[in-house]
């Protein structure tokens, strides 16, 4: 809007001198504020904007080619005698020495150095500055540090990589089995083979390596069997001897002092007909006995001094007739030196067979059968602290069993999204075990701490992990992957040192779960007996019921399945949104869950009685 002030003058008066006069201020225009116009204003959101003037940068990475280094040393044999003196001549050297000793400089220097030295020697004798001043304080309350593990070494079979530079078709082989050196734990024997059925490329090498952790670029020893090794074990008594099971079913044994070729190989006719998936040494006075299992359904015992024929054999036929046609293929083998006559075999069909070697007749060798997984049982391990409890790993879960309850496992993990490939117990803590998955993750479970989830889950690599082995001290773990990379991880001390009440708590937990299973088992048996009694009396009625059920059952099953999936997905998104939850809360929740379980048990029984 314009504010105009008009000043007029007649033309005839132009040019006259101005006469100025003062007058008080007058208001010319008064524009009052109009509040209605305020609504036209749009308040601007306060915005932070930053301005920076820098030059554009870009990041580049450069990595040099790996340089092969070798260590060399020089050993001094003789000092730098002056040219004219022959070091072999005694008198020349003696004369030289005498001359030096007469030198004044020498005398002064030695006097000076001598006093200095004496001072230190006396000091050493007076006080031992490195002594322990405060006796072993009781290890302070272990801080609740989050469990962690860090990779200490990655062994890539570079040999394969180097070879592939010349020949790009070299196939990567899976690291199928790892075995730690029994004494030093610095050497690791890894068996490499390709387990794909009939995918063996012609140029795939058969070698397996023994690595020394100090020098992970080159294997310490290359083992050259006639067929790739599927399993490999150090002899716990004699650390130079290893036994290996081959892909073609033969057994071979090596002595590391004698080089890379096997000392003896079993004859093909009496060996297995399928890859030897499990080979374990036995406790014997001679330390030369071992046994092996394979998917051809046999378990064979060998004495390595005479590999031309097995000393004993067992056919894994659960109908106890000893027929090879009915036999189940064995995929994993388990043996605990403290129970030398018993061993367990995990089969491809998902059944675990516990056997007794010292039974009188072959059919009696098979003592009990556990129907465990839906797929092959990839790993079996007994708890080193509680031999009656063992872990089985297969399909998507890991289960813990007690020898007494045969119908079902006493504890099990939830179903994962990927197959579980291997598992083992911790040698230091009775409640910790490890599992590897086919998505490259290593899970560490501590069931005194958290039952539903692993207490630590680490993504080790992108390819599936195929084997797992814990070092005897319980702190370092080696995982082998499908492409042949072996990763060594060191786990935090919280996971490998025995906690205060751990043994008691673990015992209590195992007993409680076993009792629960026994009660359930007894209940099931009762129900079955009643069913049978009832069905004998009312045969026709039962048949009619069965006819109309299948379709309904199918629909109900489908609905339940989808509900479970939905619930799972929701739970997962919720868990992610919540982020890290406090451990204590979890622990308490676990405790409460355990108590709830207990109270549910009598409730279950009541429900079942009502149904009847």
């Amino acid at each position, binding site marked *: 809007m314009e504010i105009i002030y008009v000043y007029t003058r007649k033309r005839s008066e132009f040019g006259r001198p101005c006469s100025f006069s003062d007058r008080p201020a007058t208001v010319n225009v008064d524009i009052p504020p109009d509040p209605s116009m305020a609504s036209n204003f749009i308040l601007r959101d306060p915005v932070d904007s930053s301005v920076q003037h820098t030059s554009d940068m870009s990041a580049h990475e450069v990595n040099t080619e790996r340089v092969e280094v070798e260590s060399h040393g020089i050993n001094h044999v003789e000092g730098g005698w002056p040219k004219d003196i022959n070091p072999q001549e005694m008198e020349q050297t003696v004369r030289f020495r005498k001359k030096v000793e007469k030198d004044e400089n020498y005398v002064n220097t*030695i006097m000076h150095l001598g006093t200095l030295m004496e001072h230190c020697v006396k000091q050493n004798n007076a006080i031992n500055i490195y002594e322990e001043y405060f006796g072993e304080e009781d290890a302070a309350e272990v801080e609740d540090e989050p469990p962690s593990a860090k990779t200490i070494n990655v062994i890539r079979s570079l040999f394969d990589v180097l070879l592939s530079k010349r020949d790009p078709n070299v196939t990567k082989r899976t690291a199928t089995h790892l075995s730690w050196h029994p004494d030093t734990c610095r050497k690791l024997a890894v068996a490499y083979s390709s387990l794909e059925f009939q995918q063996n490329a012609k140029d795939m090498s058969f070698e397996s390596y023994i690595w020394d952790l100090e020098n992970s670029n080159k294997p310490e020893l290359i083992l050259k069997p006639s067929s790739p090794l599927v399993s490999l074990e150090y002899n716990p008594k004699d650390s130079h001897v290893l036994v290996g099971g081959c892909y073609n079913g033969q057994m071979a044994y090596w002595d590391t002092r004698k080089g890379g070729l096997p000392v003896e190989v079993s004859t093909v006719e009496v060996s297995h007909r399928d890859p030897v998936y499990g080979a374990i040494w036995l406790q014997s006075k001679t330390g030369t006995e071992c046994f092996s299992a394979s998917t051809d359904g046999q378990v064979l015992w060998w004495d390595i001094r005479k590999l031309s024929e097995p000393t004993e054999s067992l056919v894994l036929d659960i109908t106890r007739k000893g027929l090879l046609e009915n036999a189940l293929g064995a995929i994993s083998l388990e043996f605990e030196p403290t129970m030398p006559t018993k061993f367990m075999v995990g089969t491809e069909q998902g059944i675990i067979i516990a056997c007794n070697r010292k039974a009188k007749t072959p059919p009696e060798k098979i003592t009990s059968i556990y129907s465990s997984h839906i797929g092959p049982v990839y790993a079996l391990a007994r708890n080193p602290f509680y031999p009656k409890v063992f872990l089985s790993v297969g399909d998507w879960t890991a289960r813990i069993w007690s020898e007494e309850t045969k119908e079902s496992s006493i504890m099990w993990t939830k179903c994962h999204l990927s197959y579980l490939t291997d598992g083992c117990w911790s040698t230091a803590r009775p409640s910790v075990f490890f599992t590897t998955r086919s998505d490259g993750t290593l899970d560490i479970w501590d069931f005194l701490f958290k039952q539903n989830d692993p207490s630590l889950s680490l993504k080790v690599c992108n390819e599936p992990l195929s084997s797992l082995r814990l070092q005897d001290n319980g702190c370092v773990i080696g995982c082998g992957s499908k492409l042949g990379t072996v990763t060594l991880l060191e786990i935090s001390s919280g996971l490998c040192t025995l906690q205060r009440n751990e043994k008691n708590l673990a015992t209590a937990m195992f007993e409680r779960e076993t009792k629960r299973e026994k009660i359930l088992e007894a209940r099931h048996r009762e129900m079955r007996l009643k069913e049978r009694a009832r069905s004998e009396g009312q045969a026709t009625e039962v048949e009619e019921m069965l006819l109309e059920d299948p379709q309904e059952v199918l629909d109900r099953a489908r609905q339940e399945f989808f509900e479970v999936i939905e619930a799972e997905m929701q739970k997962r998104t919720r868990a992610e949104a919540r982020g890290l939850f406090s451990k204590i809360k979890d622990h308490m929740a676990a405790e409460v869950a355990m108590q709830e379980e207990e109270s549910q048990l009598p409730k279950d029984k009541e429900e079942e009685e009502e149904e009847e």
Partner: protein
Amino acid sequence: AEVEETLKRIQAHKGVIATMVINAEGIPIRTTLDNSTTVQYAGLLHQLTTKARSTVRDIDPQNDLTFLRIRSKKHEIMIAPDKEYLLIVIQNPCE
């Protein structure tokens, strides 16, 4: 003569296992160990002393190395360096 006395005195102290005097070229002038061991010590410790001295002087050029002690599991090696000679004493310090 005084040199003799000094060295004998050092050798007589409690826990002392061996005493050696080595010149800058690595020749053992006087030693209580056998020749091959002495020569080995001579070569290795001479290099170590040079390295230690250069480290000290790199950090502060006015500084210089006066004494070097290496404590190992089994015993302690003490080296008194000089421009031309090295006096080395191996002692077992545990009571």
